[in-house]
C-alpha cells in the first residue's frame, strides 16, 4: 500500500502574522499511503501548519502542492474538494444537527440537485437527497455510530464525538487526512481504540494520514515517520527510533542538559 509517489509537498512554507514569524522554511513531503506524525512542544506551530494546508491561512512564503496541483491561495472548501480533510483540536461538530446530518453535510459537495430543484421539490431533489442519506447511513455503520443516528451531535459522549468528527472528515472523501490531536482528553482505553480505528480507516480508505499528537505512545506506536517542530521550524525528521534518540528533540521537550 505504501508507495514512493509523493502526494503532498510543502516547499519552504512559512507564514508570518505582521512581525511574528509563526512558521518558516518548512519542508514536508508525504508519500501516498503513509502515516506520518507531527510533534512538537506547545506553541511550536503544528496547528498553524494544518491551517496552512487546509487554506484557513494562506502561506506568506513557499508553496504547497497536492498531486502536482498548487494549493496556495485556494479557498478552504476548494482544498477540501481537492482531497484534504481534517479534524480539529477542539472538536468542531455541528452540535445542533443530528449525527446523521453531520455526515450528510460532508456529502454536500457530491449533491447534484440545485437550490431550485429543492425549493420546487423536483424529482432530482428526492433522488439526490436519498442518495446522500443512503451513503451517510452506510458510512455511520462503518463507524458503529448508526445507533446514535438521530441524536444531536452535542449530546454524544466525548469519545464518540471524536469518532464522529473523524467519520465526518472521511465522508468528504479525502486523499490526505489531517488529525489534530485526536487523542486529546482520552483515557488509555479510548486511546487504544483510537489507534485501532486509525489503522482500520487507513487500510479501508487507502489514506495518507498526517497526525498531530502529544501522546508519545500513540505517535511512536503508529507512525512510520515523524516530523518535529519547535519555535516555528523543523528541527528533526526521521523514524520513531531516530526521533527518540535525537538530542535536539530531547532538548526541545526537556530543556538543555545542565553541565
Amino acid at each position: 500500500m505504501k508507495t514512493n509517489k509523493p502526494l503532498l509537498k510543502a516547499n519552504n512554507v512559512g507564514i508570518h502574522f505582521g512581525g511574528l514569524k509563526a512558521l518558516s522554511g518548512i519542508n514536508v513531503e508525504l508519500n501516498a499511503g503513509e502515516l506520518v506524525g507531527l510533534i512538537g512542544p506547545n506553541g511550536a506551530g503544528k496547528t498553524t501548519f494544518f491551517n496552512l494546508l487546509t487554506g484557513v491561512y494562506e502561506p506568506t512564503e513557499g508553496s504547497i502542492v497536492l498531486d502536482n496541483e498548487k494549493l496556495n491561495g485556494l479557498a478552504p472548501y476548494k482544498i477540501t474538494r481537492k482531497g484534504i480533510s481534517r479534524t480539529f483540536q477542539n472538536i468542531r461538530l455541528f452540535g445542533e444537527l443530528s449525527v446523521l446530518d453531520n455526515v450528510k453535510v460532508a456529502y454536500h459537495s457530491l449533491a447534484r440537485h440545485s437550490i431550485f430543484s429543492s425549493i420546487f421539490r423536483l424529482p432530482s431533489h428526492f433522488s439526490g437527497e436519498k442518495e446522500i442519506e443512503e451513503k451517510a447511513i452506510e458510512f455511520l455503520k462503518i463507524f458503529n455510530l448508526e445507533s446514535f443516528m438521530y441524536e444531536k451531535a452535542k449530546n454524544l459522549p466525548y469519545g464518540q464525538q471524536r469518532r464522529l468528527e473523524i467519520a465526518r472528515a472521511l465522508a468528504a472523501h479525502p486523499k490526505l487526512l489531517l488529525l489534530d490531536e485526536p487523542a486529546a482528553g482520552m483515557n488509555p482505553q479510548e486511546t487504544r481504540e483510537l489507534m485501532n480505528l486509525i489503522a482500520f480507516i487507513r487500510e479501508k480508505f487507502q489514506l495518507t494520514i498526517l497526525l498531530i499528537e502529544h501522546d508519545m505512545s500513540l505517535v511512536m506506536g503508529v507512525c512510520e515517520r515523524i516530523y518535529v517542530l519547535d519555535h516555528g521550524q523543523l528541527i528533526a525528521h526521521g523514524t520513531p527510533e531516530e526521533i527518540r534518540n535525537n538530542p535536539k528533540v530531547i532538548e526541545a521537550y526537556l530543556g538543555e542538559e545542565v553541565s
Partner: protein
Amino acid sequence: MTTLKRINGFWISFVLALVFFIVVQLLISGGMLNTFYINTLFFMAINIILAVSLHLIIGITGQFSIGHAGFLAVGAYASAIMTMKLQMPFALSLLVGGIVAAAAGLLIGIPSLRLKGDYLAIATLGFGEIVRIILLNVDYVGGASGMTVTHLTSWPWVFACLLITIIVIANFTNSTHGRACISIREDEIAADSMGINTTYYKVAAFVIGSFFAGIAGGLYAHNFYIIQPTNFGFLKSFDILIFVVLGGLGSMSGAVIAAILLTIVSTFLQDYPETRMIIYSLVLILVMIYRPKGLLGTRELTSFFRLGKAVEGGKQGENKQTVA
C-alpha cells in the same frame, strides 16, 4: 416509503391550509369580519412573511442581519412604483418588488457577508438607514410626505404569498442546501473544511430572505393607502428581529407563532396608548427570562406531534401552515 409519508404529510397540511383559507374568505365575503379584524389578519400575515424570511437569514444561516426593514422598504416602493406610476398589474408588481429587494440583497450581501457577528449587524443596520434616507430625498416617490397607493391587497393575495413563503423556505431548509446553511450557523470553519462554499450559501440565504421581505413590502404598501419612509425605520427592523428571537432562533414555527402573538398584543394594546410600549416591553422581558431560547427553542411545532406519534402511533401531525 418515508418520502411517500412526507408527501402525504405535505398534502394533509395543504388541504388544512386550504380549508382555513376558504373559511376566512367566506367570513370576509359574508361580512362577518369587520375591517379592524381583516386589517389585523393582513398585518399578521405580512409579519409572518417577514419573520419567516428573516428566520432563514438569522435562525438558519446564523447571519445576524438587522436591516430587514430596508428590504421591506425596497419591495414596498418598487411595487408601488409599478402599480401607481407604470400602471402594471398587482401580481407583476409584487413579483418585481420581490426581485428588486432580492437584487438589493445580493448587492449588500456580497460585500457585507464577509463580516461576522456585530460587524455584519452594523453593516446591515447601515443599509436599512441608507434606504430610508434615500427614499426621504427622492421626490419621484414623494419624499417625506410619502406615496399614496391604491388598496389592492386582498385575502387571496396575502394568503397565497404567505403559503408560498412558508413552503419555499421550509423546502429550502429541509434539503442539503438548508443543511449547508445550518452548518455555517453551527461552525463556519468546520463547514468550510467540509467542502461547503460558505460565502455562496450565506449570500443565497440572504437573497432568498430579501426576496420574501420584498414581497411582504408589496403587500404592505398596497394595504395601507400610503407609504412613508418613516414606516421603515430601524425600529421596524427590530420588530421583525424580535419575532425571530422570541420564537426561538432556528425554529420556523416559532417565528410564525411569535409573529402572530406579538401582532395580536400590539394591536390590542393600541387601545391603551399610554401603557402600550411598557406592556409590550414587559412581555418581551418575561419571555426572555422564562424562555431564554425563545418560545420553541430550535424545535419545530411538528416535532411535538412526532413525539406524540411515537407514543400513540397515531395520526400524522398538523403542519405549521395551518397555524396561520
